[in-house]
């Protein structure tokens, strides 16, 4: 009998996926329901906003230098 799992499907680059996995580990594995492949994970519905914010924070730490270029003219 087929099974259906409710949640939010997230599609992203493999690099972002790695960060998401790391965030998941830091949060007692409470975010990811199913690790599908390198570019897709199924996460809990109510954790989506939280993950978005956490990911933004993580990215701000890692890709700072790229942000501050094109603001001239």
């Amino acid at each position: 009998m087929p099974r259906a799992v409710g949640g939010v499907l997230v599609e992203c680059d493999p690099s972002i996926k790695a960060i998401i996995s790391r965030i998941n580990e830091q949060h007692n594995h409470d975010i990811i329901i199913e690790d599908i492949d390198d570019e897709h994970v199924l996460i809990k519905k109510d954790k989506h906003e939280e993950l978005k914010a956490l990911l933004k924070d993580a990215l701000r730490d890692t890709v700072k230098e790229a942000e501050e270029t094109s603001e001239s003219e």
Partner: protein
Amino acid sequence: MASTASQRALDYLEGLPGTTFTRLYQQPSTALAIFRRMLPHLAKTIVMAMLYMPEPLTANSLDAWVKPDADSVGVKDRALSILQRLRILEEEGRAYKLAAAFAKSLRMALTGGGNHRSFGVPCSTPDEKPVSVDYLDTFARKQWESILYYVVGSANTELAAAEDISAGTKQLLQKGSFVTIRGRAATITDTGFTFLLQEVNAQIWTLLIVYLEVSSELQMDPVDVLSFLFTLGSLELGTSYATTNLTPTQQQMLDDLTDFGLVYRRTPDSTRYYPTRLATTLTSDAPALPNSSLSSTTTTDITAGAPQTVSQQQNEKGYIIVETNYRLYAYTNSPLLISILSLFSNLQTRYPNLVTAKITKASVLSAINTGISSQQIIAYLTTHAHPVLRHATPILPPTVVDQIRLWQIEGERMTAWKGFLIKDVGSDKDYEKAVQYAEALGVLRKEFRAKGWFFVTRMDQMSGYFKSQNARRRQEAAAAAAAAGQEGGSSAT
């Protein structure tokens, strides 16, 4: 397929319980409005064909109407899916029939008769001072734009001079989270931005759906509210209607609808009401505000009121010029349009009939942070592009369009969909069939073939499918077992 405006209404309707539908469909005007506005073409054809059928139509006969290629079957499945979600079509075993209440009301709407009064009762006595259509349009525009001003004005305090709107409407805008109150001032939210960039008809539905949600909290009957809205959609512009046969809930609604500019009453206790164009276009495709400042560059500065011939010539044609160097020229003097532009660009100079601005990374990112998507910005710029730009294809400079998209992608590293991951479908053949079914319904989002999983956005009909598949398999298994038993028996004798 239905437009975005009625899509919102459709989404809301789908969430209602079945009993609500049965009561809604008692009103011929509701049945007709839903038939006219919410159904795709094939669904209309199916309903029309089945309207006078005394017996349920078997699924096989229905299939015979449709060409057996994949495209046509997909369209048919989608049509059936919408009909079922709106509880118009009922399934009985392997046959379909129209919901009795819906069929009866639609027949009555088409052929006339009955004393349901659901298409409104025109006043029997003529108004001493008849109200002209022009006046109604102006009234509707004024009311509706003051609501928009309030939403925009909350982002831009220079617009505070705009006309005030009623406390009830303000509360409603907060309830729908178009604005939030921070301290004493209202601040626009992402929903508010989305709301602003929509066309007028979609805006009205968006607001009315919030109204519907709030009304049920206020002990107003949502069926009463909805059927009155659908009635309004079938009324005639410029005719006055009597309030006497309205239910108490609907009488109460008239006050709120006057605030929105959907109906006009000379005094709050008048026994007649005039629907405005905002109301009569609720269930049609016609533009809701023919002289709106949202769709034109005419001076709709209500207080100044001096129409400018130059800008009126550009009426309905768009007013924005975007250059490859990210500069933007907007031929407008409407504070509403200017503040919409200020949402995603840096305003630089303002002339009597022209505003110059620049699209910068900072301005686009601030828009994205409040919830406007790059898609919305681009769509807005495209639909309001000046005629000069329209000669070129593409209309907007590709560099600017691409850059706006890139600025958004930079911040967004993942895309997400709510829904259900389906696993353990069974054999490869079962999987294939299930995926095809999901695709035909338009709910398939992603396939993970290697794992035998797939992701769908809605589950209700998929679970129905799996149940029927399961039942069929069990039947087949039983039949096979019986056949095997018989064979075994016959060989024994």
